């Protein structure tokens, strides 16, 4: 059987054009609507997680001040904040949101290959979010086991939420994985099978490469989380002893035999480390496109960027035990994982150099998406450098339980991807909505967020070096710390509340743009990739009108010598004469 391009299904797609409001916006099979549903839900839970972090900071900055935060609540906030941010916000937003929106448009397809399964993916994701949020309201409340859910404490009495919270959390993760798998199969198949004529793999924009590789990582790594969730549910409900050691709890023997908590850690981090790159790779890809477009320069070292994404993806599966140095391990084992961890810095550093070299001698336009992209380079370098500290066993051991680690991972996989998320939203906003955002408001949003996050996380490194322990509700017997550590904590809390409050600027911008934003040009940034060349803005169902686009070049033909314009869209034929050519579809 030959190549069945989506093009050959033209008649089918027009036949299925949604008619009613419900099929158009609710039970929609259109990848763009599903993307917005995914993104909206993810941002909604993200705001909840942001509020939870503000509560944590209130307690840490001003202990004994707020009576509504007790130790149980605090651990529930920590757990839910971490889990929501990593899985239900970042993973869902990058893959379900941007993956859904960008893949078909960027590879020149009419939709995902399996639109029905794509729709199902969103609704199952929504179900997982609902299960997660219900756990706040069950007896005993949400789980307070920490986002890593380490047994035995995760299911033993004494930890908050061991009645129902932990079960709902595990069930919700299982449902999420089902949703992700349905979406992931779609993304992989669409990239492999539904590219338009002329779109070779090596002509795909790096955004698609990043999302594609992240999806593959997710498909292979999430099963580890599913396995550990199933086994822990069994440990909790029918008292098997997969993870639970022989243990006596408050004088009662619950009946566990000699299970292995370390086994859980292996499984969890076998998922957990690739998860870092499931969040990071789409950010890498998107930021490459943002930098290239707004610097009017081709991305430096495109092929090397692709290979770096592939290398990082492969390496991310053999570094997981660097999260477990403190659990104790054979020194050779630790040596192996320290080495692989440091090796992963090589392709990552190549990417950073290439981003910086893309900017070099570029015609840089400091528009809002570009500010966020450049901000990402700063935060990512800072977070990455502390990763080199922590990748070494001997340095990790004393720092692992301090705020140094909190600062490290928030810089590298909290702030950095979020800056890219905002940059990407501002960048594609005109295409998604057909309206422009408020430039000045956007710039205020950037500067306050960027500087504010530095005010939060830079001092945390210092607290970590002093030995301030993380995970603690209150300091207790820590006389070795100077009193000023608490002043610093209060300052961090004020910065955190400030940054959280500034996010209102973003939502204000959204509302302003949707109600009175000026109509957007189809290609306001003079970008080359296919999503900017659609006949309609925002693109209609089926994306491309009557004819599918044809791709004739890579996505980075900016400032090509000899051409009048400083960009040549991907669908402009190769034989167009310099300086006197036609722009193709959109112009």
């Amino acid at each position: 059987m030959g190549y069945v391009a989506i093009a050959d299904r033209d008649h089918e797609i027009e036949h299925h054009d949604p008619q009613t409001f419900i099929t158009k916006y609710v039970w929609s099979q259109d990848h763009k609507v599903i993307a917005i549903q995914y993104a909206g839900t993810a941002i909604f839970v993200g705001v909840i997680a942001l509020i939870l972090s503000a509560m944590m900071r209130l307690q840490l900055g001003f202990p004994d001040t707020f009576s509504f935060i007790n130790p149980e609540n605090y651990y529930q906030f920590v757990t839910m904040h971490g889990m929501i941010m990593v899985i239900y916000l970042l993973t869902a937003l990058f893959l379900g949101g941007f993956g859904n929106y960008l893949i078909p448009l960027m590879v020149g397809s009419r939709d995902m290959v399996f639109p029905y399964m794509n729709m199902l993916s969103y609704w199952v994701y929504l179900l997982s979010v609902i299960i997660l949020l219900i756990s706040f309201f069950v007896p005993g409340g949400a789980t307070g086991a920490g986002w890593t859910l380490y047994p035995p404490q995760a299911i033993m009495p004494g930890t908050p939420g061991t009645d129902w919270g932990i079960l709902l959390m595990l069930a919700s993760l299982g449902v999420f994985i089902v949703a992700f798998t349905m979406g992931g199969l779609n993304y992989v198949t669409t990239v492999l099978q539904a590219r338009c004529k002329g779109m070779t793999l090596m002509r795909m924009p790096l955004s698609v490469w990043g999302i594609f590789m992240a999806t593959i990582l997710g498909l292979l790594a999430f099963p580890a989380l599913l396995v550990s969730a199933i086994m822990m549910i069994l440990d909790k409900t029918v008292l098997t002893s997969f993870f639970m050691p022989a243990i006596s709890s408050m004088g009662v023997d619950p009946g566990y035999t000699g299970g292995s908590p370390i086994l859980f850690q292996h499984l969890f981090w076998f998922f957990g480390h690739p998860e870092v790159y499931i969040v990071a790779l789409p950010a890498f890809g998107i930021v490459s496109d943002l930098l290239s477009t707004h610097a009017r320069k081709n991305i430096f070292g495109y092929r090397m960027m692709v290979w770096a994404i592939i290398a990082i993806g492969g390496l991310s599966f053999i570094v997981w035990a660097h999260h477990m140095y403190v659990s104790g391990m054979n020194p050779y084992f630790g040596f192996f994982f320290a080495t692989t961890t440091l090796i992963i810095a090589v392709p990552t550093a190549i990417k950073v150099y290439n981003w910086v070299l893309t900017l070099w001698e570029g015609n840089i336009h400091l528009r809002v998406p570009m500010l966020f992209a450049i901000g990402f380079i700063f935060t990512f370098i800072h977070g990455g450098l502390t990763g080199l500290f922590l990748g070494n066993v001997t340095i990790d051991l004393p720092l692992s339980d301090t705020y140094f680690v909190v600062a490290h991972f928030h810089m590298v996989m909290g702030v950095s991807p979020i800056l890219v998320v905002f940059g990407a939203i501002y960048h594609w906003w005109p295409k998604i909505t057909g309206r422009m955002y408020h430039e000045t408001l956007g710039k205020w949003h950037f500067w306050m967020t960027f500087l504010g996050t530095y005010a939060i996380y830079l001092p945390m490194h210092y607290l970590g070096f002093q030995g301030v322990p993380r995970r603690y509700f209150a300091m207790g017997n820590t006389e070795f710390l100077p009193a000023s550590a608490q002043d610093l904590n209060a300052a961090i809390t004020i910065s955190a509340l400030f940054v959280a409050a500034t996010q209102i600027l973003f939502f204000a911008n959204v509302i302003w743009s949707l109600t009175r934003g000026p109509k957007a040009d189809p290609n306001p940034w003079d970008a080359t990739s296919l999503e900017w060349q659609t006949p309609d803005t925002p693109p209609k169902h089926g994306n491309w009108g009557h004819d599918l686009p044809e791709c004739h070049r890579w996505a980075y033909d900016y400032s090509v010598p000899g051409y009048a314009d400083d960009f040549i869209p991907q669908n402009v034929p190769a034989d167009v004469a310099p300086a006197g050519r036609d722009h193709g579809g959109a112009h």
Partner: protein
Amino acid sequence: MEFGLIILAIILATLLGWILKQSFNTQPWVAEQVAESEYQAPFNANPKLVALTTFLAVVTSFFALIMSAYALRMELGDWVPLTEPQLLWVNTGILVAASVAFQWTRNAAVRGLETKLKPGMLLTGLLTTAFLVGQFIAWQQLNASGQFITSNPSNAFFFLLTGLHGLHILGGMYVWGRATLRLLGGREDVKQSIELCTIYWHFLLLVWVVMFGLLLST
């Protein structure tokens, strides 16, 4: 853990090697018409087959990780090896027969022998159901002899592995059921479903054989 790692390494190496092959000797910055073979879907196959193959990689990762966990957990002191019910040999034979029956049905479908499809599908369904019933009886036998899921970690893993494998077969039975209903309703557009199901059945047979081997040898 090593076992799961090797399986995953093979999957990753295959995939990444293929991607790398696509990227060598390319000059993406050159704008030119590309030959048709270069942008076509890479596997000369329909999207459903690509999606199924990807899904099988996911399921492989899933079972490889459980079996790795099995190998790690086995080394701890409280592990008492389980004597598997002899019935599992019969069940294995039934599952092999189901796979053979599906392959036979598929061959008939490919050759366009419409009359053989209905008996082929019904036979496959019957054999697969017999396998699931057989597995359930094996569970009952274990319980009757006092071997419960909580009796020992080896028991827990036995119930977990067989249960999850059974669930995957049930998922396959859903697709089988849809195809069979269409077939009984007189529709003939079931060839693709039968082909894809056959691959899935063979895959789950392979998973079972590896799993059964692991259970027997420990």
